[in-house]
């Protein structure tokens, strides 16, 4: 049984379709890399699946439930880690985690047991009582990771989860995602950085201009493109090398003039 089932998903903003018919089935216990250039519709897809946007065409089912009718139950069983450090930064991490924990219905005991332990493991314990507006982007990202995972969700949606993290934390998160996968969770990983997606994903979906343009493991994608890294596959599927090189050259010309 697939945990996410998307049938003919379309979404328009003011007459322009940003998603033009997405069809997707995701099996449990895998890491799905969802990649595409900026503005391809990645975040919009995630926002629809997680129930943030509820106006769309087509059908989306998560864990067998329709996201339109049973959004509350769906939201309870998934975790969403947004991009751009969207959190209340005048709060301290402890207060923020307590807040999100309560919204997920976690009791104070669960929070006391898990929250502090996780803050310690993410190396934030000594700054746990400081307001987050003094935090770096990476530290905020860690708090978001904890808040999205603390209620032990079955499906985890990550939108650019590694942005701003230092090298150690990147390795930590990558290893964590692998172990979460092994314990049977499904991970939906959205990014425009090829490097990490290529290494951890079991299946990669390439999306551009609101449409899926490639779907498969990194090996099948490689065969399709006859090229080495995912970045060049990505390039060959979205734009040609010469076009990008020319654009870069023009930018430098303008800067030098």
């Amino acid at each position, binding site marked *: 049984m697939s945990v996410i089932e998307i049938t003919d998903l379309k979404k328009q903003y003011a007459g322009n379709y940003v998603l033009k018919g997405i069809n997707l089935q995701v099996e449990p216990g895998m890491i799905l890399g969802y990649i595409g250039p900026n503005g391809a519709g990645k975040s919009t897809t995630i926002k629809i699946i997680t129930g943030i946007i509820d106006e769309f065409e087509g059908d989306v089912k998560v864990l067998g439930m329709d996201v339109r009718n049973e959004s509350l139950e769906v939201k309870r069983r998934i975790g969403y880690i947004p991009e751009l450090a969207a959190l*209340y930064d005048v*709060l301290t991490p402890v207060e923020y985690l307590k807040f999100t924990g309560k919204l997920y219905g976690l009791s104070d005991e669960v929070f006391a047991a898990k929250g502090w332990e996780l803050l310690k493991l993410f190396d934030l314990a000594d700054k746990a009582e400081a307001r987050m507006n003094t935090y770096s982007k990476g530290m905020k990202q860690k708090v978001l990771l904890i808040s999205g995972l603390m209620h032990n969700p079955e499906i985890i949606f990550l939108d650019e989860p590694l942005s701003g993290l230092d090298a150690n934390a990147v390795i930590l998160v990558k290893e964590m995602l692998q172990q979460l996968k092994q314990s049977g969770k499904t991970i939906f990983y959205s990014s425009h950085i090829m490097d990490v997606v290529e290494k951890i994903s079991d299946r990669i979906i390439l999306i551009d201009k609101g449409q899926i343009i490639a779907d498969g493991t990194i090996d099948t994608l490689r065969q399709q493109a006859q090229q080495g890294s995912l970045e060049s596959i990505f390039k060959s599927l979205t734009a040609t090398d010469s076009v990008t090189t020319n654009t870069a050259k023009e930018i430098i010309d303008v800067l030098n003039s």
Partner: protein
Amino acid sequence: MPLSGVNLEQVHMIASTKLTMDRRRKPATWKRSQQKEPSNAMLYSMMVYALMGLFVGLMIFLVPDFMLAMIILHTYLLFMLIMILITDFSNVLLDTSDSQIILPKPVTSRTLLVARTLHIIVYLGQLILAIIICPLIFSTIRYGIPVGVTLLLTTILTTAIGIFVTYILYGLVLRYTSEQKVKDIIGYFQVFMTVFLRWPTR
């Protein structure tokens, strides 16, 4: 049942978290004048408003005509209220971070609506109380308890008008111009309020 679909524990958590954030957020009119993070910005604002209320309240004893005194008082109240709504409360009214933070959580829209309404009522209630407390006491002393009770009632009605006017203002500006224009207009009001409010207290 009117509260069906509303999770009271969540309402409490959202409203109290938002009030905590209000206490920590610097009022818009402070940005340059204070370097230190406020320990309780809300309390400071309330004290400033109460002090101004004291002077306006003294007017009750100085103006001989009852109607004129009440007209001055309500004009002042309405003026202050709209200023507060436009300068400080625009953060709350036009807040979009909620959609990123609260919407992915299992919270019904009714719970969120109740929590937001509760937050606005408590937030405005505190400030209105600070503004009106001195004039209310003075009016009760000068004109008796019935006037005091009626004044409390008209204060609530004036608040309703203030919120209505602010919403209309936002609605009109947003309809005919851009969001940037709204921010500019809020900026003008903030400059005005800085001169009007903070200069005498420095």
